[in-house]
């Protein structure tokens, strides 16, 4: 590279740096407050972050289940005919093979996932129609069907993240560099 070319390259590099420093992001997003996002902010984290106030028991959940869930998931959470409405109770050991049906008791690592999914997606024909107390009660009912809690346990923002799920520590993160 000649001296002249090197100088040219240096000037170009400097121009580029200056230009990027001046480059303006369009900034077309409208500011919004967390308070105004509240109705949408339904994501529950496994440590219990963002769980709402309220609570429920298995007995309360059984009544709601009979009314709003049993048509698809069948009596006692045994699972219905539709492939999406699989069993909510039981589950074979995962050592039975790669095609073992994944269930709450043999697979889920966190009980918060049960609450989160019911709250965002169930009932299938009427998502977001349950109150938070109803979601807690249904979560309690399903966890007690699986003997993961006692029948009389009250499930709320404090107790739910503490439910010990059998498969919690059975996970490997094969590619930690992707996180």
């Amino acid at each position: 590279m000649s001296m002249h070319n090197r100088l040219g390259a240096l000037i170009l590099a400097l121009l580029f740096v200056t230009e990027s420093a001046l480059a303006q992001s369009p900034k077309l997003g409208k500011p919004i407050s967390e308070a105004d996002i509240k109705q949408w902010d339904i994501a529950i984290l496994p440590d219990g972050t963002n769980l709402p106030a309220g609570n429920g028991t298995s007995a309360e959940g059984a009544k709601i289940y009979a009314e709003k869930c049993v048509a698809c998931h069948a009596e006692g959470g045994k699972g219905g005919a539709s492939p999406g409405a699989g069993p909510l109770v039981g589950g074979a050991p995962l050592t039975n093979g790669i095609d073992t049906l994944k269930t709450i008791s043999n697979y889920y690592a966190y009980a918060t996932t049960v609450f989160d999914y019911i709250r965002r997606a169930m009932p299938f024909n009427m998502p977001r129609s349950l109150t938070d107390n109803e979601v807690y009660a249904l979560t309690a009912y399903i966890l007690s069907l699986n003997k993961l809690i006692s029948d009389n346990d009250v499930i709320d923002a404090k107790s739910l993240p503490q439910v010990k799920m059998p498969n919690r520590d059975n996970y490997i993160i094969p590619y930690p560099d992707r996180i």
Partner: protein
Amino acid sequence: MINSEFVAGNGLINRRAFLGHGIAIAGTMTTAGTATAAAAEPLNDPQWSLQFGSTLPPLQIASPYEKDVVRSLSNPNGEFRNSHARTPHHLLGGTITPNSLHFSIDHSGVPNIDPAQHKLVIHGMVRQPLEFTLETLSRYPLVTRINFLECAGNSAPMFSKEPLQVTAQAIHGLVSNAEWSGVPLSILLDEAGIDRNAKWLIAEGADAHFLDRSVPVKKAYDDAMVAIYQNGEHLMPGNGYPMRLLLPGYQGNMNVKFLRRIKVVDQPAMSMFETKTYSQILPDGRTWRFHFLMEVKSFITYPSFGHNLKEPGFHAISGVAYSGTGRIAKVMVSADGGKSWGEAALQGTVHEKAFTRFVMPWHWDGQPAILQSRAWDEAGNAQPLRAEFVAARGEARNPVTTPLAFPNQHYNSITSWGVDSKGVIKHVYA
């Protein structure tokens, strides 16, 4: 003219024999005597040339003669459950999947979203939560990229112990490839002022599942985009209209459709889809989480199950190869079940994390053959052989009776098509 040469067993021809050269058929091929076509008939003007044709519709669709080139449906009667539509790879050429044929999976139906009312919010661990619309995103300088999108459950029928006798569409139809245009997610996160301790984003859709997935911030700043165009037009409804997350090379379900919310957090949400459906059981009963990347893979689309070869002679073996890691480096093809391999030609520009079409000239001598393709990406990852793949990742214990089943996830091993002496093609394991 150059002499063609066989580069591998059962009639595979050097790919260079066709690159801008004429070809002289080598002695072994002419003595087979089967490549010579019968003389053509005298020509007449066909009826369609002798009358005024149809005038143009505003939105054109394929010729009525292409009526079979459609997606196959898992829920054709519109039942109240999820639905899958698979791309007919065995009937397509090139690399771009037409929008009408792009694969789609919906867990709670396709929402009918008014783009003027749709909003995307970015909030959580940011300095200032922001709300975007299709109109505001459209004013950004968009980036355009060609990327494949693959469901983690694509090719899952191949976890079956016995090969299912179905088309490449039924086996591999949950991957497609398109040109996407949108706003780099990093720009929007920077505008919101992302907290340096943030590790994850929870991306959520506006469907009736409010489907959510956790995405590493690392991926967001690598090459993630909020896509608003698909092959030059706004997204198809089944592909996330009016906006979706695009995470090139990552499992389809993470590319959240109907994107309405990105919450910046410090831990993954462990949503149902990430902890259950899209994590995998290993043969020893342990489970994999956060696999994300769709690994290097290829499959032959022609000839494949459903295309019976009419006659011996010349055929161009063709298929697609792709890798979630980067560009395809090479594709090898075998016609003798993996005993010998020849390098295929790669057609057109090889894009990162996108379909590359490969082609391998082949002289079929009318004897049984087993066709396979095997891809390597630029990072040196090789598509695994089936035996080594299932040794590591397992086979379904229960019989797989339908290609709609998902016995496991992330299948990227080799597909084999067995040709018998009549030219009938079966799906085989070899």
